[in-house]
């Protein structure tokens, strides 16, 4: 191809030559810019691995974050910063779990509702509302959760408030993936069930959900991976907690909140790399698992 093109360029005259050259230049432009667009992934991963990997050890997963003074003493006596991010892992775990318990069933039901009622006017409104929620800035959802839960339910920063903000973020993603998944299931399968006179809820539970399970799972994993790195709404709701806590009424820490705390504390700043590496690794693994599920289905 390129050989013939070169030949054509050599043979072409005047205007034609200009067009071929322009064409070639544009293609080079496209390739170069597309490659540049992907380079930040490598830059970021490289930096995180280079600086973070040496701090990841057994303590990293089993000890809570050190306080500033401890870290300063350890560093001045020549040792590494002690401690880990157990309080963050625990907090992230509890908040994501509670958010999932709320958002997954509700999102599934709403997604099924949209699939069943497709084009009705009310369904369109519900779909638009879900889109608006998906585009809403996470910090605004943090404000909402602060007013609803922190001020009126737990009367103080709490894991529950953090979970609420994360649940609102997960909801539209699960609604969308559920509807899209069910739309892809052939109607004939559903009709076969209807023809047998099976009641509607059994068609949902025994035919549609098992058939679309991989799609639903993908949506759920992507929703979780999307909220696991959220920092801003948790600053207004979960606040942070130096000890490991699973109490929904009390403040908890989260991995991204710990990164923010380390970043702001000159004595702890070296810990940002290992905790960021861990967080990015977690998100990417969730992403890759869900991608695998998709490709298997196809």
């Amino acid at each position: 191809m390129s050989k013939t093109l070169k030949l054509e360029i050599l043979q072409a005259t005047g205007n034609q030559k200009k067009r071929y050259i322009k064409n070639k230049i544009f293609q080079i432009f496209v390739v170069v810019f597309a490659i540049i667009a992907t380079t930040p992934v490598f830059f970021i991963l490289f930096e995180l691995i280079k600086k973070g990997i040496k701090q990841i050890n057994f303590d990293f997963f089993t000890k809570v974050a050190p306080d500033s003074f401890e870290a300063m003493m350890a560093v001045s006596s020549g040792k590494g910063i002690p401690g880990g991010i157990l309080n963050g892992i625990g907090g992230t775990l509890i908040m994501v779990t509670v958010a999932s318990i709320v958002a997954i069933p509700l999102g599934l039901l709403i997604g099924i509702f949209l699939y069943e009622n497709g084009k009705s006017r009310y369904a369109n409104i519900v779909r638009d509302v879900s889109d608006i929620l998906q585009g809403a800035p996470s910090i605004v959802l943090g404000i909402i959760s602060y007013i609803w839960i922190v001020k009126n339910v737990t009367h103080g920063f709490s894991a529950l408030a953090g979970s609420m903000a994360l649940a609102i973020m997960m909801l539209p993603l699960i609604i969308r993936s559920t509807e899209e998944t069910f739309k892809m299931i052939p109607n004939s399968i559903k009709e076969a069930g209807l023809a047998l006179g099976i009641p509607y809820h059994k068609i949902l539970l025994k035919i549609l959900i098992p058939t679309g399970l991989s799609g639903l799972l993908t949506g759920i994993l992507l929703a979780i991976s999307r909220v696991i790195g959220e920092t801003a709404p948790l600053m207004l709701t979960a606040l942070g907690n130096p000890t490991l806590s699973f109490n929904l009424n009390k403040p908890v820490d989260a991995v991204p909140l710990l990164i923010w705390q380390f970043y702001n504390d000159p004595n702890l700043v070296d810990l940002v790399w290992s905790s960021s590496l861990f967080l990015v690794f977690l998100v990417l693994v969730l992403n890759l698992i869900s991608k695998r599920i998709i490709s298997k289905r196809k």
Partner: protein
Amino acid sequence: MNSEKVTKRILFIASFILIILISGIVLTLISGAFPVFEKYGFSFIYSDKWDPTEGKEQYGALTYIVGTVITSLLALIICIPFAFSTSLFIGEYYKGTLVAKIIGTLIDLLAGVPSIVYGLWGFYYLRPLLFNLGENTQGYGIFTSSIVLAIMIIPYATSISTEIISLVPNHLKEAAYSLGATRLEVITNVTIPVARSGIIASYILALGRALGETMAVTMLIGNSNLMPKGIFSLGNTMASVIANQFGEASGLKLSSLIAIGLLLFVVTGFINGIGKLIIKKFA
């Protein structure tokens, strides 16, 4: 009551919870912002005085609104050449090949990196780099945040436009090729006109993302309360002023921050609405 009706009822109730949720969000924001709008009226939006000193408190959001608009638009402008090239790469030039798949996966990974990690990367690598290039604000500022924001929204700007570019019917392109058009001529005369509204819509949606980004911008923009003088000066955005000042806020200040949240919610909702509308018309 038979089981079919019960199931349908349950599904309807679930969907209605969503309507209640969004109404609750809007009402909460409005009632939280009410004291500010009662006191200052719409001058809250066009005044640039933000002074929380007790006794002479005064709140206006213009500085932050301007900061948000400049940062996001600049990010979009920086992002477009890259996003457009990537869409053409995946959806046109190397459609269906392994290279396109790899580039697509890498761009997806870009979307997975949390905002705070982008902030760290920007703080430790981009900021010193820009500082060495001769910026005089220690590398902080609107321009720095815009670059990081641009990287963050590339996946959003790319995904829908790629899909739409790859959907341009082959027979239209082939007709142009048969007339002797080069690939560039096919792209400018066939692909872009056919896919135009979809491409624009995906950039609008990316802009909506940029408006609400918080952490990365907060770490890089310098958080100054003065009106930005240009793209290289320090600034502040609506999202980052909320993140920075919400913790210690109460009374009128809290109400002002909620009012900023309300504005942000309305603006992003509006922008996303336009984007979705264009896509719907296109489809």
